[in-house]
């Protein structure tokens, strides 16, 4: 094709190709951009970060010396604060914040996903923050609030044609609220978006960034603290704080498992007290955390000894025998058996009036582990009244463990079921009994 062209035509084609390449290169992603006014350089994220973690944002390559931002921080949003003192300023700031994003290829379409404004409101002498968001752009083109100066004069509930409330009504804006500032938050998923947002925010009084830690990294870090922090009191404090206060269930569970790893190295009762609080179903709805708490207590019963457990601790473990989760019930039984004779009242009550056969079964095993005359007496009484075959077998095993062979022989005279009879006979005749 090129052969048939004149020199001028060829030169034209080459020129066009160069222009196209330059245009393509120019439209592509930016790898890095520095905002001189902020003294902040945003760098493109490692693309593999997005593939592996689904992370969006930019990395802070260079940070302003006066800010708390750290090099390497992952920035997800840029927020610009515009204080307002007149109605004109307020409406201009609102318009700027709630304006739909438009991209050059969106012919006739608007992207309102980022069209929101955070209002700094003074209400009854307090400062509160209310977000106005155009949640249903097809139904709402305005926020639905009217102003007098910077004060909200009225809030429109909705329109007859619309199913939804106005953004102002939905957000809880009320007449009489005074708007002190409008905050425009923008997601910065790329360096280009960061550049655009920073340029848009040049007239803002203050500029902030949101940074985040990836949940996956946080989980790994918590796991690492559990593995490495045995000698660090700060590690215990931090993990306890995460277990107590974190909102993400996966992060809390990881903290609880990390505390399990720290339990064998603990020398004081801080972890024990925290674990006892989390053992109770009323305090802790998450079953995995209750299980971890039970494991921690079991481990601490070995390292701290039974004397570290006061009456309340025994009561908490006894209560956990009635947990809805079999794993917690089982661990509670083990804990009670470790606490020895102080657990006898709780185990007696569980054996005789347990909420389920499983609870009775666990109590019988725990009594067998504790041993002694009183435990034997309880087991003998229970064997006389037990009707369930499985429970009979557990009680018989526990009795054999605590030296109740004579009582088991007497039990054989009461004509138990053939299976139980055979099992008890073997127990009685075994060399250990």
């Amino acid at each position: 094709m090129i052969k048939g062209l004149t020199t001028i035509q060829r030169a034209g084609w080459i020129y066009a190709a160069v222009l196209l390449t330059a245009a393509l290169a120019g439209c592509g992603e930016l790898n890095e951009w520095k905002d001189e006014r902020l003294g902040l350089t945003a760098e493109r994220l490692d693309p593999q970060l997005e593939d592996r973690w689904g992370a969006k944002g930019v990395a802070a390559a260079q940070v302003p010396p006066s800010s708390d931002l750290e090099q390497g921080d992952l920035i997800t949003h840029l927020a610009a604060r515009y204080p307002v003192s007149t109605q004109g300023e307020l409406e201009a700031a609102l318009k700027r914040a709630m304006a739909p994003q438009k991209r050059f290829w969106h012919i006739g379409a608007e992207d309102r996903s980022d069209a929101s404004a955070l209002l700094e409101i003074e209400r009854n002498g307090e400062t509160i923050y209310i977000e106005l968001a155009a949640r249903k752009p097809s139904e709402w083109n305005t926020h639905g609030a009217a102003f007098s100066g910077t004060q909200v004069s009225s809030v429109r509930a909705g329109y007859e044609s619309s199913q939804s409330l106005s953004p102002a009504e939905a957000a809880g804006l009320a007449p009489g609220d005074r708007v002190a500032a409008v905050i425009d938050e923008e997601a910065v998923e790329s360096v280009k978006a960061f550049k655009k947002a920073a340029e848009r925010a040049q007239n803002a009084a203050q500029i902030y960034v949101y940074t985040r830690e990836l949940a996956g990294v946080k989980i790994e870090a918590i796991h690492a603290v559990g593995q490495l922090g045995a000698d660090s009191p700060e590690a215990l404090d931090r993990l306890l704080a995460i277990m107590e206060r974190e909102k993400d269930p996966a992060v809390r569970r990881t903290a609880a498992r990390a505390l399990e790893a720290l339990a064998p190295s603990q020398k004081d009762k801080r972890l024990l007290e925290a674990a006892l609080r989390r053992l109770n179903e009323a305090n802790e709805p998450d079953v995995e955390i209750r299980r971890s708490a039970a494991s921690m207590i079991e481990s601490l019963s070995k390292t701290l000894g039974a004397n570290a457990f006061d009456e309340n601790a025994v009561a908490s473990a006894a209560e956990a025998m009635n947990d809805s989760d079999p794993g917690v019930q089982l661990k509670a039984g083990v804990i009670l058996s470790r606490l020895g004779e102080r657990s006898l009242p709780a185990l007696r009550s569980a054996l005789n009036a347990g909420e389920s056969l499983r609870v009775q079964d666990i109590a019988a095993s725990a009594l067998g582990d504790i041993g002694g005359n009183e435990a034997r007496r309880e087991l003998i009484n229970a064997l006389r009244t037990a009707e369930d075959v499985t429970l009979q077998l557990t009680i018989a095993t526990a009795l054999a463990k605590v030296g109740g062979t004579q009582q088991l022989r007497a039990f054989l005279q009461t004509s138990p079921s053939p299976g139980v009879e055979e099992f008890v006979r073997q127990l009685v005749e075994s060399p250990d009994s």
Partner: protein
Amino acid sequence: MKCKGQALKGFQGVCALAALALIFGCGQQNESLTEAKSLLKSEKRNRIELAANQLKQALEAELTSRDEAEARYLLGYYGINLAVEKRAELFSEAARLEPRRYEDSLIHEALRDQDSDIREAVRAALAERYESRKEPIRRALMDALKGKDNRARADAAWVLGYLAAQDSALKDGIKQALTHKRMETRLNAVAAIEELAQHNPEAARSFIPELLEKIDGKPKRVWWKVWDREGEREAPETRALSVRALGTMGAVDELLGVLRNKGSSLRADALQALIAAGGSETTIDALLDLLQEESGGADGWNSSRRDGQTLTQVR
């Protein structure tokens, strides 16, 4: 003319005798060795144990060098009740007797076995042989590392890392392989460094700059990525393995560097590697710093509206 004819006849007779001797010589392999080989080919239930016994018997007799090498190699391979050290000794001796044949067999056959005892024995035997046969073994392993066979690459890396703990000259070969055009070769070169780190962490630390280059090196410009200006980075698995290798050699400061770069995709790998490297006060401090609670927001601004995010003023 008659004389010439007689000489020819004499020559023919010698040739015939030589041929017969050769044929009989080849056929008369030690009975136990022959029996062991036929057992190994059979379907008998205890064929391996029986063959091993036959091989032991064969080694008690006088054998040709070739038969002895074969018997030793086979016993090293099938002597399942022997200690790894003994099997290594058998392999090594086989390779000493017949280097051309058994060095190759060790690298390309026995090393591929799935039995970890065999693999350990082969590696120990190669290490022993490496003392006197550096160049051929190095060449064979490097060829395997750069070759097309994935299993051979991984096996070669495993042995090279082990041998490099004794001979620093091997490190140059590994270093070259780190920039090989084939990604799998680069990956296995990093695997060799990790293996080296397990045996000689101090020697492996000389690779830290190369590993950091793999982890955080600037992407290379390539024409097919002009549009997004990203260029081509090292493959994710090679980068992740580089981080793991840092952990194995205990390069804690470098791992903390990876951890602090929140734009990196390798922070979770760095955390796992830090666990492998073991704890230190610095590591714990860095981890606690990472887990510090989010600030309550700036100027009373409620950052909880963006869960798990921290608000920081920059102007």
